[in-house]
């Protein structure tokens, strides 16, 4: 049984217009997305800006309201819960954000940043709290004396670790990582990715990993979903999707990844041209008249594709 099951999730934002600012249309940021996360796995959501991948992640922690559909966490539908009713679940689901520079309050010390979720849920004595924070700082590889420093005294990678430490204190089951390494340099990115894997092993975490870098997604995710304009176009085991992409959009994405092997240049360029041509010619095979991707259909037990 999956830890998190998202069933036909829709998040629509109203567009207001006209004299009385009435709702004239909707932006369908997420438009009928379904997938499932098993315990202990890393599930990647990949797509370009505006594809709805972040909105999906935020809907799980109710930073966005779901318009319809179900978000089942351990069998409980979160989408119907009020803000107050969500409280016990917030402990189990934590979020890590992209920008380590703006997601930490610059006026708070590290100790207060990390302790904040803890203070919301548990009553700990000052001594206990300190011990706990030291433990987590140690886990994320920061020295105990960094407790009384402010975020600006740290580098990007270290700040991202502070964000991760904060997410860990409540011993969550699910972590939603929204582009956690996109703002980091390659070498720092490597640190954070390794470290997310270590933590996963140690705390039996499940990750919903949202990203746009296909190399990173491939590296870290067991299974993944490719999003395009609010819809999933392909979903399944990462290996299969990379080795055998079926949807034209997935093919385009994969073809766009720059190759470290400089001898592949010519081949890559030709591949991109081929895919672009196919995209134009066989549009109706992949998208309906409204330009919307079709519903996902299984092509194997572990691979689903949006084909007509």
């Amino acid at each position, binding site marked *: 049984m999956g830890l998190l099951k998202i069933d036909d999730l829709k998040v629509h934002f109203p567009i207001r217009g006209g004299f009385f600012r009435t709702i004239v249309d909707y932006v369908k940021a997420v438009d009928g997305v379904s997938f499932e996360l098993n315990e202990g796995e890393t599930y990647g959501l990949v797509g370009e800006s505006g594809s709805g991948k972040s909105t999906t992640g935020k809907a799980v922690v109710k930073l966005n309201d779901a318009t319809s559909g179900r978000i089942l966490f351990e069998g409980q539908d979160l989408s119907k819960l009020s803000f107050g009713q969500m409280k016990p679940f917030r402990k189990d689901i934590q979020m890590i954000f992209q920008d380590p520079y703006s997601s930490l309050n610059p006026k708070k010390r590290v100790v207060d940043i990390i302790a904040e979720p803890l203070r919301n849920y548990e009553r700990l004595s000052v001594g206990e709290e300190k011990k706990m924070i030291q433990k987590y700082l140690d886990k994320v590889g920061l020295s105990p004396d960094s407790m009384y420093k402010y975020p600006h005294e740290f580098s990007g990678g270290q700040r991202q670790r502070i964000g991760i430490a904060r997410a860990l204190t409540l011993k969550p089951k699910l972590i939603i990582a929204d582009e956690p390494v996109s703002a980091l340099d390659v070498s720092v990115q490597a640190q954070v990715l390794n470290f997310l894997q270590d933590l996963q092993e140690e705390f039996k975490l499940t990750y919903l990993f949202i990203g746009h870098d296909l190399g990173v997604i491939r*590296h870290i995710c067991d299974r993944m979903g490719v999003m395009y304009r609010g819809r999933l176009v392909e979903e399944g085991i990462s290996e299969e999707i990379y080795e055998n992409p079926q949807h034209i959009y997935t093919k385009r994405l994969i073809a766009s990844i*720059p190759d470290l092997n400089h001898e592949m240049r010519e081949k890559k360029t030709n591949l991109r041209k081929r895919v672009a041509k196919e995209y134009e010619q066989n549009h109706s095979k992949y998208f309906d008249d409204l330009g919307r991707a079709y519903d996902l259909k299984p092509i194997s037990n572990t691979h689903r594709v949006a084909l007509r």
Partner: protein
Amino acid sequence: MEKPILQIENLTTSFKIKDKYYMAVDHVSFSVSENEIVAVVGESGCGKSALALSIMRLHNNQRTKIEGEIKYRERNIVTISEGQMNQIRGKEIGIIFQEPLTALNPLMTVGDQIEENLTFHTKLSKEKKRLRTIELLTQVGIPSPTRTYDQFPHELSGGMRQRVMISIAIACNPSLVIADEPTTALDVTIQAQILELLKSIQKETKMGIILITHDLSVVAEVADRVIVMYAGQVVEMGTVKQIFTKPLHPYTRSLLKSIPSQATNKKRLHVIDGMVPSIVNMNRESCRFSPRIPWIPCNAHEESPELHEVAPDHWVRCTCYKHFYFKGLQRGEITNGIT
């Protein structure tokens, strides 16, 4: 051999921090020829953007000191007056910035911003300028150029804005274009298109391109020659083939190894110990990368490391590359070296 357009000799750019100058670009020398893409690669803080801005002399000149020579077609542009420099900026050398939303004036139409370049460097009539601008917009692949001409930057998507940025840079047919992280803020599919576009423009105009980027895979895709920078210095320089098939400097090798790819699937990635030093407190005497490879013995490093030509056109700084090996990593331990 194509003739060089730009020759940089011992370029040193220092920033004033609390009344003292610190070198952000430290005696950098290289050249760019016609029809060539030279990539400058490194992580944030290595001085690559400072280098790009130095070539255009766009730093705040109250706080910046530029020394050495930047010879554009045999003329040292470090010492010429601001007025003479304005004849080079935009006309002879164009620059493309990373973030196209903030790099464009929000209150001016796209057309006006491109035409500005023509106004200051050509004697074209109003109508001719308009035609040239629309031609440029077509050239960079904007689908409805006449409409875009009258649009404002916020009305365009990120990829379209970057195309506008490119058309500003190439408006006067410069012989050199500096692209400072031109695709970093863009999606992968758009990134591929923009790189393709730059290459196709180059084919037509034979311009030289300096591509500043932190992304090694972008370098592998488009560059002819590669310059790897670390802590303000060039640590390795060579052809794309040399750098990607036979990287020598420990920094280049470590960077390449830390990139996640299909081979690294779920395995641990390589991590470089420590952090990039800040320009204020770094040891400038010895090998600047040595604190990050502490397992390599001290005597492997040179006392004051120099660039050595190890193969024709392949340069490496310090002798430590001869003794470098990757430290074996044990699963489970976090060996990042950060306190």
